[in-house]
């Protein structure tokens, strides 16, 4: 089931549960921009959760609130069981944060970057050195470990960022736009990386992205963010089935006022919705077009209808976004880029 966000009603009961992250009605304003306008969602322990939305939707601001970098104007949030406003220092010890922009110290080697971050997290001595070696191996930087990061490629810096975020074995990892700026090859490699981390380090991961396919591939559940609000959250396949659906258009010949009956036939399909008539055609949204079409065709023909054509439209990112916001994703994404 998909659940539309209902603002503060998600609230208190869930904050008390074992959620790794609980955001409740977060508001944040920067001068003339309402960056967050009531963001609510929750992430369960151990899951990979995606915040999906166009540029400027409020994803990064949400992450900055959850990582204690910025305070919300109102609303509550807890991460790993700690309130981000009341106990930011506890949150910081429990999380790893991989920002949208790399936080790598260019003039230090990969190993030095990791050692310093480890020390800040109160690690020391042999355990720290062992952990750093382990991570360098994990992200494939063992050979480059003692080179200054200035010479790393974009993908290598990104992998070092992730290692830096993991050095203290955080319970929750934030990945803010992990593949933005990477070429398709590096992006695919990063996806494999994130999947492996989710398994090996048994982490809760919150990732933000403006690529639907990325959320689809990596996230067990997603929340779609638009203009500072979560418009819907749920499993990607459910979102696609329930929200995108597929639109089926059945064009008929010589219907002679029997369009109402044709609509009923189409509407009788399991899960069909938004059935309406357009000229000589019946349009509807069905969960699975491939299964619906044969049933529609055989039922209509058995009742003596003459079918001219049947078309299905595959769901796209624009469709989902359009469905929930009434706006086109690409236009919003471009506008949000500034």
């Amino acid at each position, binding site marked *: 089931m998909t659940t539309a966000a209902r603002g503060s009603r998600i609230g208190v009961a869930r904050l008390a549960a074992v959620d790794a992250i609980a955001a409740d009605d977060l508001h944040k304003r920067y001068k003339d921009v309402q960056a967050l306008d009531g963001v609510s969602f929750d992430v369960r322990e151990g899951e990979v959760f995606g915040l999906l939305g166009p540029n400027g939707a409020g994803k990064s601001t949400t992450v900055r609130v959850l990582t204690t970098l910025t305070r919300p104007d109102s609303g509550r949030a807890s991460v790993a069981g700690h309130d981000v406003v009341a106990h930011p220092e506890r949150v910081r010890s429990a*999380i790893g944060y991989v920002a949208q922009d790399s936080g790598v110290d260019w003039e230090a080697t990969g190993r*030095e970057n990791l050692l310093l971050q480890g020390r800040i997290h109160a690690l020391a001595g042999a355990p720290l050195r062992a952990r750093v070696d382990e991570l360098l191996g994990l992200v494939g930087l063992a050979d480059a470990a003692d080179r200054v990061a200035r010479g790393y490629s974009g993908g290598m810096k990104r992998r070092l960022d992730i290692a830096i975020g993991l050095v203290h074995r955080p319970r929750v990892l934030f990945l803010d736009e992990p593949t933005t700026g990477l070429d398709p090859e590096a992006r695919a490699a990063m996806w494999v990386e994130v999947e492996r981390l989710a398994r090996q380090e048994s982490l809760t991961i919150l990732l933000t992205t403006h690529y639907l396919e990325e959320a689809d591939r990596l996230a067990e559940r997603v929340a779609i963010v638009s203009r500072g609000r979560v418009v819907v959250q749920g499993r990607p396949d459910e979102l696609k089935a329930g929200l995108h659906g597929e639109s089926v258009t059945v064009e008929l010949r010589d219907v002679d006022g029997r369009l109402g009956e044709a609509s009923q036939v189409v509407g009788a399909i399991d899960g069909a919705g938004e059935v309406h008539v357009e000229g000589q055609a019946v349009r509807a949204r069905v969960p699975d077009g491939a299964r619906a079409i044969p049933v529609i065709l055989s039922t209509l023909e058995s009742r003596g209808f003459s079918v001219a054509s049947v078309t299905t439209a595959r769901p796209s990112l624009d469709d989902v976004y359009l469905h929930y916001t009434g706006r086109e994703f690409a236009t919003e994404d471009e506008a949000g880029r500034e």
Partner: protein
Amino acid sequence: MTQVFRHTGWMVVRQARNLMREPIWIAMMVIQPLLWLLLYGQLFSKVPQLRGGASSYVEFLTPGIVCMNAFFGGTWAGMAMITDLDRHVVDRFLASPASRVAIVLSQVIRAGITAVLQALLLLGISYALGVRVHGGVAGWLVVLAASSLLAMVFAGFSNGIALLVRREASMIATANFVGLPLMFLSSILLGVQTMPRWMQDVARYNPVNWGAQAARNAVVVGGAWWPSGQYLLFLLAAAAATTSFATWTFRAYQRSI
């Protein structure tokens, strides 16, 4: 509190290590003060009234150049903060348990350490040129204290500005705007008694001049410990004030993200 010191220590090590990887930076840190010393030493050596009681102009100039380096080095210290802001290293620290004070304080202390190393180098070279610190060991310590405190005063200021403007171009403009006037309103190159009356009055409130006077007392006079001590206390207070200013602008930066 011990956490602040530990984190400051690691961050100073990080910055120092990064700088040691810049051969050009090291070369400039060594060559530039020497150039000043030799250039000015030659330029003004024939003008006896500039010496202010020293046996040679180089002797007069050495403590001045030590302070000039310390103070110039300090005014540019904020550039490292801007680089860390640009590369999001600061944000990375902020999302970790890193001490907030250490992020700022490490920049200030690093500037102080750099100034001490340069002062030692300059004193060594000028020794070869025949300059003797008349104040002996205590004199050396006063010169080193003056240079490190002076660097920290301006490093605090510079970091505060860096965190306000957050852009290299604005930072450079500010450093230039502050640098030369404060140098000429001090006794770094010329004795205070050669200045017009109003400049002498202004110089009295110039931290650069406090450092230059303390260092010069130690090298040339080899005494006047009480006024020198006062100057050092003024510098300490100023360093505390500018570092507080930087931590205050750091909080302003945090609020802006």
